[in-house]
């Protein structure tokens, strides 16, 4: 415990002490834009994402991310970050038992346990390559690559980002298509049926396919408001076009507010899952039209804060 504490605090402080930085300020909480740091600029960002309310019982998940970004060139940005989560769950599954969220799927709480756990999820790297700028081309276009390595967990996220600006770049529309296969190396589940795959060590492969969009308007100097919407689909295995492997299909949307000045920014987004969900593999996780499988919940909120060093002097 002490080791983690020291490591995390050190990472945060190191991030804070990096000199000469600038910004790729996020207008949205979940949707990415094509804006990147200029060459040679640094930035530190802290994300706090809370996900809560299941069909039954008590549930909350806090996803935390501490990130340092650097502009390798004006159109190529690299980042590194730490991901660490905390969760509390009790009688939260659709059948009224306690189940851990997907990030904690290598833990198997008893059906009546009050599950309360923190976990270091992993270390991630991120590369964003901007091919076209919304300021000098008809649209902005960028590609995002993010490998994550963790204990019993690997993920590779690829995202296409499109951005169009209007009204002197104060009105911004951004859209993302994300493909993210995840591999989890799971220990035996003591509550699984004997003889089932889950009863022994197994490898779980799942692919997330998300389509998101956001519209933001800068209504006053430093301040923008917007709206984000995202369709999230989960597929068992790799084959995203194999309908027999489709699992959850949920929609989230909600408002976002963003503040930024010369060195600091903050973005807050609140989402609610819309009652339009399907789960093609297990309809029992659908309750009142919403998907409450292990990676879905009713509400999500994300706060991003960031600081760019240096300045225009």
């Amino acid at each position, binding site marked *: 415990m002490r080791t983690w504490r020291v490591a*995390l605090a050190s*990472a945060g402080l190191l991030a804070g002490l990096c000199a000469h930085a*600038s910004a790729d300020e996020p207008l949205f909480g979940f949707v990415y834009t094509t804006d990147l740091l200029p060459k040679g600029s640094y930035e530190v960002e802290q994300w706090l994402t809370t996900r809560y309310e299941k069909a039954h019982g008590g549930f909350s998940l806090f996803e935390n991310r501490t990130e340092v970004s650097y502009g390798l060139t004006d159109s190529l940005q690299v980042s590194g970050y730490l991901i660490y989560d905390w969760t509390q769950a009790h009688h939260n599954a659709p059948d009224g038992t306690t189940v851990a969220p997907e990030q904690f799927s290598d833990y198997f709480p008893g059906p009546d346990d009050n599950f309360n756990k*923190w976990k270091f999820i992993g270390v991630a790297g991120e590369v964003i390559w901007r091919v076209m700028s919304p300021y000098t081309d008809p649209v902005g276009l960028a590609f995002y690559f993010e490998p994550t390595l963790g204990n019993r967990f690997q993920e590779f996220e690829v995202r296409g980002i499109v951005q169009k600006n209007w009204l002197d770049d104060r009105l911004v529309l951004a859209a993302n298509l994300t493909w993210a296969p995840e591999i989890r190396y799971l220990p035996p589940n003591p509550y699984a049926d004997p003889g089932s795959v889950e009863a022994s060590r197994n490898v779980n492969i799942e692919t997330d396919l998300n389509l998101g969009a956001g519209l933001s308007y800068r209504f006053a*100097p430093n301040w923008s408001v917007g709206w984000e919407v995202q369709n999230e689909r989960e597929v068992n295995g790799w084959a995203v076009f194999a309908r027999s492997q489709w699992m959850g299909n949920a929609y989230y949307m909600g408002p976002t507010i963003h503040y930024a000045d010369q060195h600091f920014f903050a973005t807050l987004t609140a989402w609610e899952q819309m009652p339009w969900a399907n789960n093609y593999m297990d309809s029992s996780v659908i309750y009142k039209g919403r998907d409450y499988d292990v990676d879905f919940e009713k509400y999500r909120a994300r706060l991003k804060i960031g600081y760019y060093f240096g300045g*225009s002097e």
Partner: protein
Amino acid sequence: MKASFLLVPAATLAIISPAHAKVFMSIEQAQQLMFPGATLTAQPMTLTDAQAKAVESASNANVLNRNLSIWRVSTGGWFIADEVVGKHEFIPIAVGLDASGAVKDIEILEYREAYGSEVRNPQWRAQFTGKRNGAKLTLTDDIQNISGATLSSKHITDGVRRLLATYAIAIASH
């Protein structure tokens, strides 16, 4: 246990400090720099609906403020104080026109953004000198982009093009 989670955000928050706008020069200083020894007389005016539309049509740039802050120069020419959209805040600029309506000089009066202050570079600003209404004044065409300061470069370029159209449509006959 949970307290350890607070350490990283706390460390991040600990480095945050208030930002300060960088004021490079006042309007009066810019006036003296562009027109040394001359007397400048304020002649504020407001664009009519028709004039604003004509400016937007001629310049392909939005008129954000119809109230013009303009000064007539005793030795000939005009001084215009204006603002263009920056990344987070407006960027106050000043444009000096000679007696024939050509750009004499432009100045960035204040800059509040984290990056992009290279637009103050005299060589970059010199690209506008001599430009008149009707010039292309388009970023990456006759005005070079400053990589890493694209948004500021674009909006200053658009702003000068708009002010030259404003001069031709409303100020020259004032």
